């Protein structure tokens, strides 16, 4: 089974196998190129003394040998690099994933948290509405209180008027008036009897 080494790819930005494949292909190309150059130089230097197909056979023989060793050595190198260099040890967490260890929660917990946030939002809105209703009533109360105080003030002004015109507390003065008018009646009666 192929280990995709996705976590390493997350860190390096490429898969380690691709990196090795890239190096392998490049090395292999160089090997071919350099041997081609070797062949070219030999043909040039030994101009005509040797048959090109003969040199080609030599090159193929040498290349076969080289390729075999190259592949064996490269496999070894790849193994070591994938194990020691281009890998992320199992116990290592990449910085961008630190949050995974600090904040673990199941789907239920997450949903519960989302639900709680939703309920808090609802409660908040209800609270805002309540406060607005209360503030509206306070405004109304202000008007009502002003009206009532105005009415009370009327009573006070009325009493002040009475007081200003010699009748202090209206009730008492009314009582006084009643008394003095009763006295007046008695005097009147007296006068009438005496005059008869």
């Amino acid at each position, binding site marked *: 089974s*192929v280990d995709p080494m996705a976590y390493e*790819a997350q860190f390096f*930005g490429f*898969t380690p196998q691709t990196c090795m494949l890239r190096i392998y292909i490049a090395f292999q190309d160089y090997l071919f190129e350099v041997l081609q150059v070797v062949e070219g130089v030999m043909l040039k230097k030994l101009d005509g003394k040797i048959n090109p197909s003969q040199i080609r056979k030599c090159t193929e023989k040498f290349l076969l040998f080289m390729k075999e060793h190259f592949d064996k050595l490269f496999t070894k190198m790849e193994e070591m690099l994938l194990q020691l260099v281009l890998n992320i040890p199992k116990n290592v967490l990449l910085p961008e994933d630190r949050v995974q260890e600090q904040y673990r929660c199941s789907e239920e917990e997450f949903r519960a948290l989302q639900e709680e946030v939703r309920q808090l939002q609802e409660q908040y809105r209800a609270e805002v509405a309540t406060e607005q209703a209360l503030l509206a009533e306070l405004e109304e109360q202000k008007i009502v209180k002003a009206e009532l105080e105005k009415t009370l003030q009327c009573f006070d002004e009325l009493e002040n008027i009475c007081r200003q015109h010699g009748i202090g507390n209206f009730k008492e003065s009314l009582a006084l008036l009643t008394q003095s008018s009763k006295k007046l009646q008695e005097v009147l009666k007296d006068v009438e009897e005496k005059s008869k």
Partner: protein
Amino acid sequence: FDELIVETATRRKQWPKKILVHAIQAMKAEQE
């Protein structure tokens, strides 16, 4: 397959941050 791995790994690295940007924006807007 290799491209798929790299693309998936890149998303795993980058997209949480992108999603967070939007999520935080939404929360901040709501708070405001």
